[in-house]
């Protein structure tokens, strides 16, 4: 069985599981918090779609999940469990924020520089486990998991230590010059050009996976490594390239958060986008276009969750609970399926 067959699977049963988990467990949690599920979900959807600005914020959350989810999908399709998107995203954001504040450039150059810096930093952070896997056969799950912690601590150290702002107690880089900030798409919102960039990236990734020799070889390595090896595909090189690209996408996501939403790097820039994105990638069946749909659904939960807490008094943690259960349900199937086949 291939990883895709184990983790993905275009079954309606999966969608059903997700829907039941979201609404069933969500309702149960709300009942435990003495809130009517009708009110709770009402507040959630109202918070996600109620106003123009709220719709924009939903799309912002969609974007923030989409970049790391696409990166995760590329690694998973190559047969690699990259669960290090969070660290790759944080370091991408840091590189973007720091470099953007250091070098004053006109907008045509500053924005690309900031985004490329984030992409390269995330890519480098993804390349490390890719290299360890290619060279020493090191398990990428453990490597990426540990590099998450290292990335967050490294960025925290840098902004508080050597790169600390004089006279400021905040764990952040200086504000980006206006030229290095991504332009708004909707007034009074944080929605920027990052959203269309993410959409284009999804289509591009889909094209690369399905329509190029590179994508063919990457999928072969993931779906049948032994057959791929015998077909002349270098599994080590594929692992390195896939992990680098995977990290690069998460890093680009971090850079767009910095350049478009926060206008500076802050150690709290991600409420766990890199982890939620694993669920997004899996619900999207590792298919870039379905991942767009999944990212939107999780974006609704993210942005509506805040309103739900404020208006209906339901703890926002219900959203985390539901997200976690979706991951367990979909990834847990892998364990069950593996047991059955062995």
């Amino acid at each position: 069985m291939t990883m895709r067959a184990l983790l993905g699977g275009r079954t309606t049963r999966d969608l059903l599981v997700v829907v039941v988990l979201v609404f069933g467990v969500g309702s149960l949690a709300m009942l435990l918090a003495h809130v009517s599920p009708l009110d709770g979900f009402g507040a959630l959807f109202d918070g996600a779609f109620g106003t123009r600005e709220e719709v924009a914020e939903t799309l912002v959350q969609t974007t923030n999940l989409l970049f790391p989810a696409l990166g995760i999908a590329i690694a998973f399709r190559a047969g690699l469990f990259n669960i290090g998107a969070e660290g790759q995203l944080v370091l991408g954001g840091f590189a973007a924020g720091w470099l953007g504040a250091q070098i004053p450039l006109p907008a045509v150059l500053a924005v690309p520089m900031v985004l490329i810096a984030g992409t390269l930093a995330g890519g480098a952070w993804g390349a490390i486990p890719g290299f360890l896997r290619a060279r020493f056969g090191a398990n990428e799950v453990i490597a990426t998991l540990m590099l998450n912690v290292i990335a967050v601590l490294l960025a925290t150290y840098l902004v508080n230590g050597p790169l600390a702002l004089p006279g400021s107690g905040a764990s952040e880089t200086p504000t980006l010059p206006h030229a290095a900030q991504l332009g708004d798409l909707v007034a009074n919102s944080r929605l920027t050009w990052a959203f269309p960039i993410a959409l284009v990236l999804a289509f591009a990734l889909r094209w690369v996976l399905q329509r190029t020799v590179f994508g063919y070889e990457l999928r072969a390595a993931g779906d049948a490594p032994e057959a791929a090896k015998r077909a002349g595909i270098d599994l080590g090189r594929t692992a390195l390239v896939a992990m680098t690209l995977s990290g690069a996408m998460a890093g680009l996501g971090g850079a767009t958060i910095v350049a478009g939403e926060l206008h500076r790097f802050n150690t709290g820039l991600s409420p766990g986008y890199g982890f939620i994105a694993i669920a997004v990638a899996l619900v999207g069946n590792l298919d870039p276009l379905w991942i767009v749909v999944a990212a939107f659904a999780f974006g609704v939960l993210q942005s509506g969750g805040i309103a739900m807490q404020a208006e209906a008094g339901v703890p926002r943690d219900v959203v985390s609970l539901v997200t976690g259960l979706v991951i367990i349900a979909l990834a847990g199937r892998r364990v069950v399926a593996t047991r059955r086949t062995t």
Partner: protein
Amino acid sequence: MQAVDGVDLELFPGEIHALVGENGAGKSTLAAIAYGAVRPDEGTVTAAGVVGLVHQHFKLIERLRVWENVLLNREPRRGLTIDAAAARERVRALGEAYGLRVDPDAIVETLPVGIKQRVELLRELDREPAVLLLDEPTASLAPGEIASFFATVADLAARGTAILVVTHKLAEVVAYSARVTVMRAGAVVARHRTSDTSAEEIAREMVGGEVPALAARAERPVETLLEARGFCAVSGSSALIDAAFTVGAGEIVGVAGVEGNGQSALADALAGVVPFTGTLNLAGTPLRADEGPAGRLQRGVRVIPQDRRHEALVLDWNVRDNAVLGRQRVIPFARYDEAARELIARFDVRPPNPDAIAGMLSGGNQQKIVVGRALAGAPALVVAYQPTRGIDIGAAILVQSRLIEARNAGAGVLLISFELDEIFACADRILVLAQGRIAGTFTRATIDRGRIGSLMAGHP
């Protein structure tokens, strides 16, 4: 899916009954039902006593002694402990009685395959079965061992046991059985007294028509293509030691041998999957030990691996993408569909649909894809490792014919097979592989079945 449908089968004491049919005809399912391992949806099974089953793949505990295996769960006891002395004696006496002599204290993993089979048989015999089912019992035996195995079975039958041999080797059916039942697509299509029929008739009944003829071998000059000297390699538990041989362009060299005698090391080293030592020259230029499968493919070396499901195909993918695997950089992406359609037509892949999922195809059609892509684009050297394993006769003949045609067109073919008949049918020259070494070389003119058989069994 229905594997067996409305089948009647009667076994008589004292008789060896052969059950034949192609892969997927339902023979193994029928045997499993008779044994009680599979419950039939309809119908009944009655036996005048215990039913024993000897599996094709031995079910022995390798680390334990012979007597421990034979008497597993039926050990003679003395109080709370096992009476080892009595157990040993019981196994010795059992072996004596049936002419299956084995040292009861030997550790199973140290025994050769033929002896392991005796242990497997003894374990069933200790239960004094009235009916004994043997599933492909000779799959891993050398020719000499096969004769002595059937002598034992005939002796068992003579003592009143009803015996069912499930097999696909028609020569054995004709030589050793009293009755034969032929199955096709889950149903019985013919029953014979073996003396009233022939291997040819049984083959026609299995296939459901005429068995197609093998492609003719063209007379052609042979020039040395591959030259191996001091060739050593290891792949898993398989080892090839100090092999020296040549394969000519326009020649099929058969590698005969019992499974587990270095074949995997030979195939994997040529594929570039494992490193080798010694010298391998292809068309005068050395193959490098470290160039990997990509390098070998570039040199025109195509290997048809033994395990098509894991080593050759991406089962979740469609036929189109599988048809170009290994040539994915040679063929432009836009031409994948064209290449797949060509292969489907030339190898009669069914269904003839590039979008069909490879895992859903029958074994024979899967193998046609694997062989088809290996032979596409005029390869220099084709290494075919068990290319017809587990596929039906029609597909097997087609695969063998295409290999012969590739040879006629000037390719060198190394045919590694555990089926001697396949090698005799296809090979221009024969190497015998035993215990990792090349034990003998024969040409078509000097083929000596008996001598090859005894070399395969490890006798010098």
